[in-house]
């Protein structure tokens, strides 16, 4: 009994240690004063108002959404196609291809960032949003591939044969039969890709142009320059957005599990 109690206490302690800094941001963002302290001097939404009327923050949010949106589209299409090829194709070296596709996940971001920085400088992509989208796509594609492959595992290949035997050319068979059934996997992969791009920092720091601030980069800059509760407000919003994405992908994963 004592052992269980001790274990519970230790677990609670670890959780508190992990969560406390994040939870502390919430009251700080609602502070009425300008000085960061706990408990705050009073409560207000003034920092949220400041955030939403700041040109810099809005531009950063817009950049983040544009880059994450384009990354989601690109990684979603490429990742889904790659997963289809890996699943249905009779490929030699399937495992090796999969490992290669997943390499960016295990490669330290800083290595990818440095390598892309050199390559982009040579190719003239450095400092462009398009280059940033490509970089984010590289690190997002593995999530899409793995999510779609997982949903394809529950797909009955006889359905594809049935569709073909009923007169559907390959494209129609994919659109009418395969895609609707693996849609939860594709959507989960897309959510992952969006989330990956949305809070990506290191690649952005290396590859974005001087004026191209995304939300993570703007937070970093704000923390270093001014460090007022606006940052806390931005952090809270970003945290909530991530939570929403996580819940969305979890819901999709559960739905996808029902296939087959």
């Amino acid at each position, binding site marked *: 009994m004592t052992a269980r109690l001790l274990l519970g206490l230790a677990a609670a302690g670890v959780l508190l240690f992990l969560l406390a800094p994040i939870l502390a941001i919430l009251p700080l963002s609602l502070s009425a004063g300008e000085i960061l302290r706990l408990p705050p001097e009073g409560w207000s939404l003034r920092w949220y108002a400041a955030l939403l009327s700041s040109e810099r923050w809005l531009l950063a949010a817009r950049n983040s959404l544009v880059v994450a949106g384009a990354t989601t589209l690109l990684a979603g299409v490429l990742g889904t196609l790659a997963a289809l090829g890996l699943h249905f194709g009779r490929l030699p070296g399937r495992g090796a291809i999969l490992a290669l596709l997943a390499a960016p996940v295990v490669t330290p971001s800083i290595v990818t960032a440095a390598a892309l920085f050199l390559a982009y400088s040579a190719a003239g992509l450095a400092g462009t949003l398009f280059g940033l989208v490509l970089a984010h796509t590289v690190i997002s594609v593995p999530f899409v591939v793995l999510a779609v492959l997982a949903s394809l595992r529950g797909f009955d290949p006889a359905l594809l044969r049935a569709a073909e*035997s009923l007169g*559907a050319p*390959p494209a129609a068979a994919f659109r009418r039969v395969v895609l609707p059934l693996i849609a939860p996997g594709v959507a989960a992969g897309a959510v992952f890709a969006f989330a990956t791009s949305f809070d990506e920092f290191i690649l952005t720091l290396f590859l974005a142009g001087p004026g191209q601030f995304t939300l993570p980069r703007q937070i970093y800059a704000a923390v270093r320059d001014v460090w007022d509760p606006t940052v806390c407000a931005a952090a809270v919003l970003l945290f909530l957005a991530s939570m929403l994405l996580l819940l969305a992908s979890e819901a999709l994963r559960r739905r996808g599990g029902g296939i087959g």
Partner: protein
Amino acid sequence: MSAPVVHFRGVTKSYDGRSLAVAPLDLAVAEGEFLTLLGPSGSGKTTTLMMLAGFEAPSSGEILLEGRVVNRVPPHRRGLGVVFQNYALFPHMSVAENLSFPLEMRRIPRAERAERIARALATVRMEGFADRRPAQLSGGQQQRVALARALIFSPRLVLMDEPLGALDRQLREELQQEIKALHARLGVTILYVTHDQGEALALSDRIAVFRAGRIEQLGTPRELYDRPASAFVAGFLGENNLIPVEVLGAEGAFRRCRLPDGGTILVPGCRPPGPALLVLRPERILPGAEGPNRLSATVLGATFLGDQTRLSVALGPATLAVKLPHGAAGHGLARGERIALCFPPEAAALLPPEGGG
């Protein structure tokens, strides 16, 4: 008989480039015929069907559909109905949408689609299920919908790959009758794959018995049952006694043979003197001592099966199965008792000895 609907000409299939899953296959299916490919798993029957559907490419040879070589025609342009073992209904579509799919692929207008769907559902007695999802149907109902979907675009040829394999026995027999009735009514050509010999006998106009990638024998159910060409066919279709005998010589149209217990019998056939295999159906052996072929056997066991009693008897070193119809003499025998049995000469046949040519 008109030109064959399907013609396999020297078709082979090899997956590894060395061993043949299908050995050179020559087979013609006539218009309106119900032909069954029967064999144990791995005998090449499903591979043959999949090559015809276009899901597998032959390694060599030609497949002709209505006189046209289709080796390079993709499945969606072959216009065949295919019924799969596990139904393969689209789970995200309703029954009506499943049936509509092949019609949409053929750009048939909406009004005509609705009419044909209603008719197809009536054909398989599934009216009122149009809006159900496949998951809301029983196995038998799902297979009915799959049948309707394979027939709704009026293909001239329908392929069925163990379509009743996943159903329980009673439902299987019920659907067998429906498939048979559909075949008779629609006049469609059906190529059917099964490993269930009872199903093959009940449904087919002709049966091709597959073994190790080859057709062992091709014929009507009655031919295969009564005149098997090999010990494999004799043993695969129904229950059979295969008894090693010694052909002694000719007596008119018959051969006199020595049984394992030393007794002799007369059997029609033309085997040369020497070892041979006697084929004798258990239900053709009768109690009593009539005619030239009399057996004096010892009862090893008896099983009451309702409409018949199945005896296992010893004839010298050999064991025979005997099926006595309900009410016939010879019931109530105990183990070790002697029993007099006989069979008419035409009930038996001679085959080459096992392992011989």
